[in-house]
């Protein structure tokens, strides 16, 4: 009896919810509208008036930008117009002479070519491999935690350490991969062969960046409602087509963001990798623009030329980012 009672009671509780909810006409006892007590404004104890406060709060951020970005940038710009004599005793203001000289140097054009090739390949490979891995992880979400932890490791590794790792792996005669490559009949020697050296730094740079991209792609994939994918499956889209017509477009905000991040990464943050792995060689085969600035400026002591190079580099990155925002963003769907 008591069991049945409880049962019936539960039924009551369940069905009571659906009481005339359809037109919502169930007379609700009306709350007495209690007027909110007239709120006395919180006594103003702020030292700064409301108008000044936002600017005051911005000061630290502005100061940091000023000290670490605008000031060096302005200095580089100023330096790029100067020529110093060999002993650093006198400087002369030469307008665009440093730039003009730069554009007569074939090794500069070479570095431009290497940089674009390197950055393009690194960004493309690290993005597409990360997307592939993230798509696989997204399917098997149970193992994803282990997977994710394993994949995040490369990101925690310092660039120099990363390239040391790769030097070991690809060291001719010593490294595991190097031996495998040589065993397969390839004359593997990145220390002498420029193309192979470039491949080596590309692999190291890609490896280093994949985990970062992976995390963002995985988060992006998981933000796509499952029911949308299911709807596409019912709508007759096979997995490959589903990916390109639904998943990939919905991922485009993430992809766009990552393209910007990755190109910037390939341009600037790979300095450590290149320096440790190849030092720009052999025969400047892996000398990117950033590496060249570093080399010419710090080691070569050509301050004016180096400053001109970094100004150009800044201009390139600003332009690239602007282009990306203008054109890629148009294809971003929402």
């Amino acid at each position, binding site marked *: 009896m008591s069991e*049945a009672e409880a049962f019936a009671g539960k039924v009551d509780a369940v*069905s009571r919810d659906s009481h005339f909810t*359809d037109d919502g006409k169930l007379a609700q006892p009306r709350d007495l509208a209690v007027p909110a007590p007239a709120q006395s404004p919180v006594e103003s104890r702020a030292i700064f008036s409301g108008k000044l406060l936002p600017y005051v709060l911005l000061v630290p951020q502005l100061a940091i930008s000023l000290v670490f970005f605008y000031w060096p940038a302005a200095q580089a710009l100023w330096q790029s117009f100067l020529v110093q004599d060999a002993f650093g005793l006198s400087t002369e203001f030469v307008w665009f002479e440093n730039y003009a000289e730069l554009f007569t140097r074939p090794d500069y054009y070479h570095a431009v070519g290497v940089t674009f090739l390197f950055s393009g390949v690194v960004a493309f490979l690290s993005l597409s491999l990360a997307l592939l891995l993230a798509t696989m992880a997204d399917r098997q979400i149970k193992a994803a935690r282990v997977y994710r932890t394993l994949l995040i490791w490369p990101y925690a590794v310092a660039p120099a350490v990363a390239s040391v790792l790769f030097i070991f792996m690809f060291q001719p005669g010593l490294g595991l991969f190097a031996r495998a490559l040589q065993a397969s009949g390839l004359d593997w020697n990145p220390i002498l062969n420029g193309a192979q050296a470039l491949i080596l730094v590309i692999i190291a740079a890609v490896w280093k960046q994949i985990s970062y991209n992976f995390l963002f792609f995985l988060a992006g994939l998981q933000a796509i409602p499952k*029911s949308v994918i299911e709807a*596409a*499956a*019912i709508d007759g*889209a096979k997995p490959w087509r589903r990916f390109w017509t639904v998943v990939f477009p919905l991922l485009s905000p993430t992809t766009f963001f990552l393209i910007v991040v990755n190109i910037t990464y390939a341009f600037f943050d790979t300095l450590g990798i290149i320096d440790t792995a190849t030092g720009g060689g052999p025969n400047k085969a892996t000398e990117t623009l950033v590496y060249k600035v570093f080399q010419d400026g710090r080691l070569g002591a050509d301050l004016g030329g180096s400053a001109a190079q970094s100004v150009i580099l800044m201009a390139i990155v600003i332009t690239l980012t602007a282009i990306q925002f203008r054109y890629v963003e148009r294809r971003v*769907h*929402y």
Partner: protein
Amino acid sequence: MASVVLNEVRKTYAGGFEAVKGVSFTVSDGGLCVLVGPSGCGKSTLLRMVAGLETVSSGDIRIGERRVNDLEPMARDIAMVFQNYALYPHMSVFDNMAYGLRNRGTPKPEIEKRVKEAARILELDALLERKPRQLSGGQRQRVAMGRAIVRKPAAFLFDEPLSNLDAKLRVQMRIEIRKLQRELKTTSIYVTHDQLEAMTLADRLVVMNGGHMEQVGTALDVFQNPASVFVAGFIGSPPMNFLAGEVDTQGRLRLPDGAFLAFDPKRGEAQVGRKVLAGLRPENVALRNGVEDGAAPRFRLELVEELGMGRLVHGKVGERPFTVAQGASDPPPSGYSLSIGIEPALVHLFDAASGLSLTSAAPRR
């Protein structure tokens, strides 16, 4: 056009939880079957198995002539309307509807024709270029419907398609769905936890509870002859009242407080002394002022809700909550000395232990 047949379908999730415990029913060609039940009873699971989004642990699902258990969703020739609509956010309304046709390689003019046709039926003509985020909830709902109908599938599956809409729109869309389904004559399974929606839409009603099927029948049949306490309490609003009692003599119940309640012994067997639950629909109960008949159950008034087209009188009979639905012309209750009366033939009896109906002629399955 096809019928959908489920035979002893079961679902055990990876964790070992059995969400659907052997369900069998048939949706006839062109019919609309509503699965109704409280949250978590396995409705969505069942529907997703029919759609092919969830594997079937055991049993058979047939759509038309084919056993579809092992077919991919796309091969089953069904269309589904999701609770959150699941529109493709990056596609226009037109592309949302055209997507399924394009995937199947339908020729362009045919796609154009079908989408325009669906848009006309659903009054979406002016919105074809918009993206889903530029639409209201009701319009998104229509697009989701449109996406289903352009494909002309063998069956429609609806998973609580109206639960994200406000009450007024829900009533309106409910009617539209019914009209559309009648017009297209497409076999449909519709999941809801709203019993009113279920009653108004169903050709055939399947009441589920905890992974089991409690009752199958027409809406009216289920309402009039509920097979169990659960169904009786779930279908109907306001819900049925229950009073515990004991069969005193044939045709009479004794309630705990000593009152008596007459029932129709012809409706079902109930031996003397059996402990039962009597079910009384609020709209079948009359309130009497004063206690003319000393043996009639007393009603303790607690609250009156005025609805305009009638009123709900809430109170207690014995220790149990009890609601009486009055028509607008009935005199409002006056005073607190009240008793209830009901036609004996309208009293449902349920076994107190099993909860199964003793008066319902309909079999449990």
